[in-house]
């Protein structure tokens, strides 16, 4: 009897739990679903048809309009986003790996002090840095160039923090000792031995930094006036601000938003396991 109530109870809670999770899943998917539907519609149908149902399917025509808008500026923005995010994350990951590895594997005076400075850096609100950086960069003439967005993006204190944890866990002392006995210099040991052992965690660091740069908006907004240097986020923001004067831009804002999030979402799903290792390490104290 009591066993049966238990089973019934667990069936009830199972249903409640599933229902709750489905409601949350709908919440997370709704805006993306809306965007997909809207991106396939003609501009005129946006206001006149149900936003959650497909009408005239013309995704490809919308894509054509998007990529030819203002002489193909959108493609330029997409390219810029890729340049900022890929290059910035590659360089940033390398710097983080070198520094984190040294903090994990070498003992030297001031090591813990340096590490706590870096940890403090994790807590610094990066938007607070953007305005003073703008002033410094305008004094040096870097403002309104690729470098203005690229240079600050390569610094990731969180990346160093992760690299230190990963290096400590993934690179055994004995391997380093034997490499040293073979006469390999520290850099050779790092680039030929350690970096391979750290490879999965370097992917994690790369991903975190890639997303941080890809999603960044405030820094490029402060630094750039030239449209041809904009990343996608800033470009779409500008277009979105013009839709009241140029209503036809609305469809391109929608299609452009979809185009810019789809590749990243796919990469996300494919590389899921790397996120989890990073987030797990991030929550270690």
């Amino acid at each position, binding site marked *: 009897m009591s066993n049966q109530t238990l089973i019934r109870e667990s069936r009830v809670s199972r249903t409640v739990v599933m229902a709750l999770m489905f409601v949350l899943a709908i919440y997370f998917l709704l805006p993306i679903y809306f965007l997909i539907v809207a991106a396939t519609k003609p501009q005129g149908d946006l206001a006149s048809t149900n936003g959650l149902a497909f009408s005239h399917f013309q995704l490809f025509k919308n894509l054509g309009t998007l990529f030819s808008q203002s002489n193909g500026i959108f493609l330029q923005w997409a390219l810029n986003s890729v340049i900022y995010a890929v290059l910035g994350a590659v360089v940033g990951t*390398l710097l983080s790996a070198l520094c984190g590895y040294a903090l994990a594997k070498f003992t030297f005076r001031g090591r813990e002090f340096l590490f706590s400075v870096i940890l403090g850096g994790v807590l610094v609100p990066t938007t*607070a840095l953007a305005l003073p950086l703008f002033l410094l960069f305008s004094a040096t003439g870097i403002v309104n160039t690729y470098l203005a967005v690229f240079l600050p993006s390569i610094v990731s204190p969180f990346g160093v923090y992760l690299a230190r944890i990963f290096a400590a866990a993934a690179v055994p002392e004995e391997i380093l000792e034997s490499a040293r006995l073979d006469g390999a210099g520290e850099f050779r040991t790092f680039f030929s031995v350690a970096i391979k052992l750290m490879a999965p965690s370097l992917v994690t660091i790369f991903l975190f930094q890639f997303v941080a740069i890809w999603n960044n908006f405030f820094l490029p907004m402060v630094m750039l006036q030239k449209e041809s240097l904009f990343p996608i986020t800033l470009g779409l923001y500008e277009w979105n601000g013009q839709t009241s004067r140029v209503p036809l831009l609305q469809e391109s804002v929608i299609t452009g938003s979809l185009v810019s*999030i789809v590749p990243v979402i796919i990469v996300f799903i494919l590389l899921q396991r790397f996120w989890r290792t990073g987030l797990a390490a991030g929550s270690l104290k």
Partner: protein
Amino acid sequence: MTDIATRATRVVAATGGRRRLNGGGPRAGTIAAFLIPFFLPFVLFYLVPIGYALWQSFLVVRRTGGQYGTSYTTFGGFEQYVQVFQNNEFWSSIGRIGLFGIVQVPVMLFVALIMALLLDTPLLKIKSFFRITAFMPYAVPGVIAAIMWSFLYSPQLSPLIDLLNGIGLHPDFLGPGAVLWSAANVSTWLWTGYNMLIMFSALQAIPQELYEAAKLDGASNWAIAWKIKVPIIAPSIILTTVFSIIGTLQLYAEPAVLRQISSNISSTFTPNMLAYAVASGNNYQQAAAISVVIALITFVLSFGFMRLTSKRAGL
């Protein structure tokens, strides 16, 4: 014991000669070569701007000879800070963001925690589907998330408003009272899954044996979740809270996008928007002072929260 031992090696290392800082390790020059590639840009693009903002915040621009005289910059002490604290717009932006944070951060983290706990029970099927859908918004830039939601808030385009009208509700997502919560919803949508995954990863790291004894004693899933799991992952919850506090105080992109379609968001809606608006008016010294105050509030709140919770949890 080990502490004394490491201290001893450190003393040996410190007195062991100039060329090598420790026994068999690499030379100081080599170590520096590993560190400098990171620390040089870190100093240039993190520490120098902080110092520069501090310095700027103590300067004032004065004019000689009235409106048409020449202007010059001079040391002004705390004058800029006095102005910040006398600025009503500053206080209302802080008030808004405070209200936002007090409601949005707990709601978001509570939902994230519930999701993480449910994903960690056998009650749930198709877990990876739920995990991925919740985490997906993290891949979406804040600006684009706000653009997406602004379509769902817009009276002309929103299918949500159509649905709600159908059941007799007439929400105005962009109205003066609601727009702050519409912005809060965008943040919640963006970050719940990320925070959930941090907590979930921590839950996964707990060895199963810890629950076995409790299960044998007849403890319910509910009791195990709240009495065993939540206390163990407390450090992750603290971490996500600190990151959320930092994020809230930096809020810019989401309200800036909503401002494009709502007249109820002013150009000084959040402290960060205020700083940018002041800087756009070429008053860099005042903007620097605002930035410094925001950063200080961030530090005080995040460190304060960490101290408070670590004391109470006895960590």
